[in-house]
């Protein structure tokens, strides 16, 4: 078991949360999960395991059917949904960049709709381009003129724009080629060391989970199977966990060497 963190260190807390579709199908069942401030919690699982559903409950793209979900100590329903979302950065696999916006407008989106003065938005965008390792001159380009890796960097920069304390990342590196993915994973670790955001990261890739996660929440058919640190995870004898480890092969002993 895990030592219960004192409440003020919790960024997000699920208490017996359930999510059902209108037809009654249960996608998420009795979920109890605490995300500590500054950690990277990885939700690991197959498609349909409920990890993306879990993520979308946090920024209320979906509304829980039961239980309590707290963000920064306050029930999500108590938050003004727009304010809640603006303090939570969101990165998704297909990036979701606006094709008709330049990189600059894409990154500056949340500050702009939050009515920052244009000059401040511009400065912030330049700053963020540097943070995610992009040339400042891509600012004037459109997403279609960028490579997949560049687009994903823009996606991360956009999520960071208003300096939100929480980041939700839904398989952000899933669509990238292995080399670019490894590069972005490394940069993510660097970035996270500096910024210390609370990150909830969805992936089905065990290696990614072991590399990036402070803790790994393994999910299966809408339930939380185990919540372990990467070290505990590779040593676990939990059948679901070992099944996962076996599926990903044998060379996992060196998972932290890169």
């Amino acid at each position: 078991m895990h030592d219960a963190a004192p409440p003020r260190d919790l960024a997000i807390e699920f208490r017996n949360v359930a999510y059902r579709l209108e037809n009654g199908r249960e996608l998420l069942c009795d979920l109890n999960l605490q995300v500590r401030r500054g950690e990277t919690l990885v939700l690991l699982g197959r498609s349909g395991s409920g990890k993306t559903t879990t993520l979308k409950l946090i920024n209320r793209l979906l509304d829980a059917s039961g239980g309590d979900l707290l963000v920064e100590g306050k029930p999500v329903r108590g938050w003004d949904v727009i304010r809640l979302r603006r303090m939570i950065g969101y990165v998704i696999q297909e990036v979701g960049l606006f094709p008709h916006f330049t990189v600059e407008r894409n990154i500056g989106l949340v500050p702009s709709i939050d009515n920052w003065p244009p000059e401040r938005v511009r400065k912030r965008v330049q700053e963020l381009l540097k943070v995610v390792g992009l040339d400042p001159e891509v600012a004037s380009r459109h997403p279609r003129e960028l490579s997949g890796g560049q687009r994903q960097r823009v996606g991360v920069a956009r999520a960071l724009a208003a300096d939100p304390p929480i980041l939700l990342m839904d398989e952000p590196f899933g669509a990238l080629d292995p080399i670019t993915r490894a590069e972005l994973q490394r940069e993510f670790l660097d970035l996270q060391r500096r910024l210390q955001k609370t990150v909830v990261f969805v992936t089905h890739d065990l290696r990614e989970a072991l590399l990036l996660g402070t803790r790994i929440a393994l999910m299966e058919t809408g339930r939380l199977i185990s919540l372990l640190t990467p070290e505990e995870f590779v040593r676990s004898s939990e059948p679901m966990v070992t099944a996962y480890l076996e599926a990903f092969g044998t060379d996992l002993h060196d998972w932290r060497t890169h």
Partner: protein
Amino acid sequence: MQTWQFIVQNYTQVLELTFEHLWLVLVSTALAVVVGIPLGILITRRPLLNKPVLGLANVIQTIPSLALFGILLPAPWIGARADRLAILALTLYALLPMIRNTYVGIKSVDRAIIEAGRGMGMTDHQLLWQVELPLSLGVIVAGVRVATVISVGLATIAAAIGAGGLGEYIFRGLAMVNNQVILAGAIPAALLALAADFGLGWLEKSLSPR
């Protein structure tokens, strides 16, 4: 060619009828834009209204144009003048392409983009104006284009109720069994339709993303 001679000899009247024709088309299309686009947006927001609104617009579309003029004739104010009647009928016909294209255009914007926008805290209003409408503008303009071209053709029938336009020549020519006169109405009407199609087609292309 005799038709050409006829047009040249009567050019003031041809021009007058062409302007009348244009007036009918422009006013009715403008009205259809003002009513149809908001309706199209509305049914993306209120799915329950989707079927009744599109259904009604569809039904209107199936009424033969002469019959529609007849149905509208007893309407107060509208029925009092032929051009009002014609404009209303043309507007009703233009509604379906406007509503449907607006609806389809907005609905076909990539879900991932919308979801990303919502997830970042855009309000419905911001999402509509900054994302959905700009990205569906090409499809919406395609609707305006279809509606306009249809209107140019249909407006010739307005002459049957005395609303003027190039249909005057077509009906007169039919009555006189005179091809020259028919063509003096039909050719300018066809040119108008082509010009509208070309102009709006160009606009559609330049407004479509990528």
